[in-house]
């Protein structure tokens, strides 16, 4: 057990969970979050491999892309509800996944325009990041980077949930027509929430790419989106802080517990997913608000 590795992943999952909480916590289920996360990771990897490993360049770019994708989802959310929105988010997820998987050409160097993502082989050897000339190459520095992004996301979430903005989101979740009737601009508020969510997910992607130093299309797969959704639902959707952090802790704790009981290798990975599946079923029956949530699944 490497504590710095665990801290890095805790920060990453916490950022992802907090970001998705802005959507799931307010009444929409999306399956496109893994794809936005992957977009952030690829953005950092490509910028670091071609231009500069400085985060002051890659982070705004990744966050901008994430916000754009979030805005696209919000436009879909204003037109589609329930199952139809889930399907439309799946359309977005599949398109991003396929673009990442198929943007390759044999015989061309990786990250060249015609082979930007290197297809299924992914991009290896992504440089460690730096900020204004200070290299963040040690595991400790990366853990601090991951936790500081998580703290920033937490702070934004904490402030917004307690503000009039958060109250409009809650009102729209509970009764959208009533919220509109009271003169609240539900569409704009939701657009901002989706944009914020996309930006934070892309930020988590930057952390992943700079820590793992390798990105491949599986990051944008449906399985990844399902995992992120599991974190939020198990922790508790709609919670200001405790839900996403509890979910992130749960996802990290399961493999460690399995290692403790000597379940390792491929079996451990299957048992881990099996436990997530059981957790999802039990949560919907026994505690629809999640382990530390404030509002049930809608």
């Amino acid at each position: 057990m490497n504590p710095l590795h665990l801290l890095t992943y805790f920060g990453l999952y916490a950022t992802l969970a907090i970001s998705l909480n802005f959507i799931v916590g307010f009444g929409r289920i999306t399956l496109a979050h893994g794809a936005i996360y992957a977009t952030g990771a690829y953005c950092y990897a490509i910028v670091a491999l071609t231009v500069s490993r400085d985060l002051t360049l890659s982070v705004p770019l990744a966050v901008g892309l994430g916000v754009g994708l979030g805005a696209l989802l919000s436009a879909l959310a204003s037109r589609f509800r329930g199952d139809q929105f889930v399907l439309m988010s799946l359309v977005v997820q599949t398109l991003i996944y396929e673009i990442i998987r198929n943007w390759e050409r044999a015989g061309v160097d990786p990250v060249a325009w015609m082979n930007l993502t290197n297809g299924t082989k992914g991009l290896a050897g992504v440089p460690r990041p730096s900020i204004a000339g200070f290299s963040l190459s040690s595991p400790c520095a990366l853990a601090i980077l991951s936790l500081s992004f998580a703290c920033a996301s937490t702070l934004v979430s904490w402030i917004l949930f307690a503000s009039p903005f958060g109250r409009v989101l809650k009102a729209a979740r509970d009764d959208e027509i009533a919220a509109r009737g009271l003169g609240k601009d539900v569409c704009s508020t939701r657009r901002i929430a989706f944009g914020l969510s996309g930006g934070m997910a892309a930020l988590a992607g930057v952390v992943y790419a700079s820590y793992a130093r390798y990105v491949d299309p599986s990051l944008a797969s449906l399985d990844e989106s399902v995992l992120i959704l599991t974190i939020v639902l198990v922790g508790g959707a709609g919670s200001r802080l405790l839900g996403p952090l509890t979910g992130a802790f749960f996802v990290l704790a399961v493999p460690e517990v399995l290692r403790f009981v000597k379940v390792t290798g491929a079996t451990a990975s299957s048992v881990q997913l099996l436990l997530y599946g059981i957790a999802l079923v039990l949560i919907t029956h026994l505690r629809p608000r999640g382990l530390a949530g404030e509002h049930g699944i809608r």
Partner: protein
Amino acid sequence: MQVVITGFVSGLEISLLALAFGVVYLPSRVFFLAMGGIYVAAPFLAKELSDRTGSWAFSLPVAIVSAILLSILADLGSHRPLSRRGASDGAHFVSSLGQYIFLMQVVVLIWGNDPQSFVPGVETIKTQFGGRVPLGQAISAAACIAGLAAFYAWLLLSNVGLRLRALASNPMEMQLAGQSDTRLRTVAFGLSGALCALSSLAAARNVGFDPHTGMVATVSAIVATFIGGRYSYWGPFLGGLLVGAIRAATVWSFGTRWQDVAVFLFLGCCLLLFPNGLLGHRQRVEYQP
């Protein structure tokens, strides 16, 4: 011609699976993702039983019956209690997703991750309708056509089929008329399990199987249902055939890499232009179920 045949057979398999999804979705509005787990389990169970007993005549029916029981269990154990408590569609979705992950991982733990096939070695190929038809594809097409024909005959001609259509059309009216919707729901889930297993076994005979095909197949089925029309029993059939045709045409024109892109773009366009699917009728937002 080869592309047309392949697209048609693939479309039939998707139609059958889409119908398995639709038969639950229509009367209960449950987004039955656990179907993916049943889809994965059925061929593994059939092959295991066949290896042990040496009889396909025994193993295939047992696999289908097991799928029916699993499907009914999913309803009795999870969806019915949730419905009784008035849980939201999202809760059903999450619960079903959990069941799918659970079932799939149980299959992985028992039988492993490796792709498998019912028939080892090279498949017999015959020339039919101007194209080369492997025996597995012909068997798959025949099984799907038989399954679809049996289902629609039952739905249109039997009394229970009529009641299931009525429940799908207006569940509230059925309850007011004193009809038990719980028994009909059990029938729907059982049917879904049977159709899902049949589609899975047909696809397994055609192209082989592995534990990771469940979600892909289920998503294809859901896409087909939404394209064809989710409030109609004919929608999944039409949607499945269209998805098969789009896939085959994309493979023919651009290669296998872009088939999902084409299907999902088509779905996106359909949802924008025909929110209730191609066979769904336009209606005022406040009247939509």
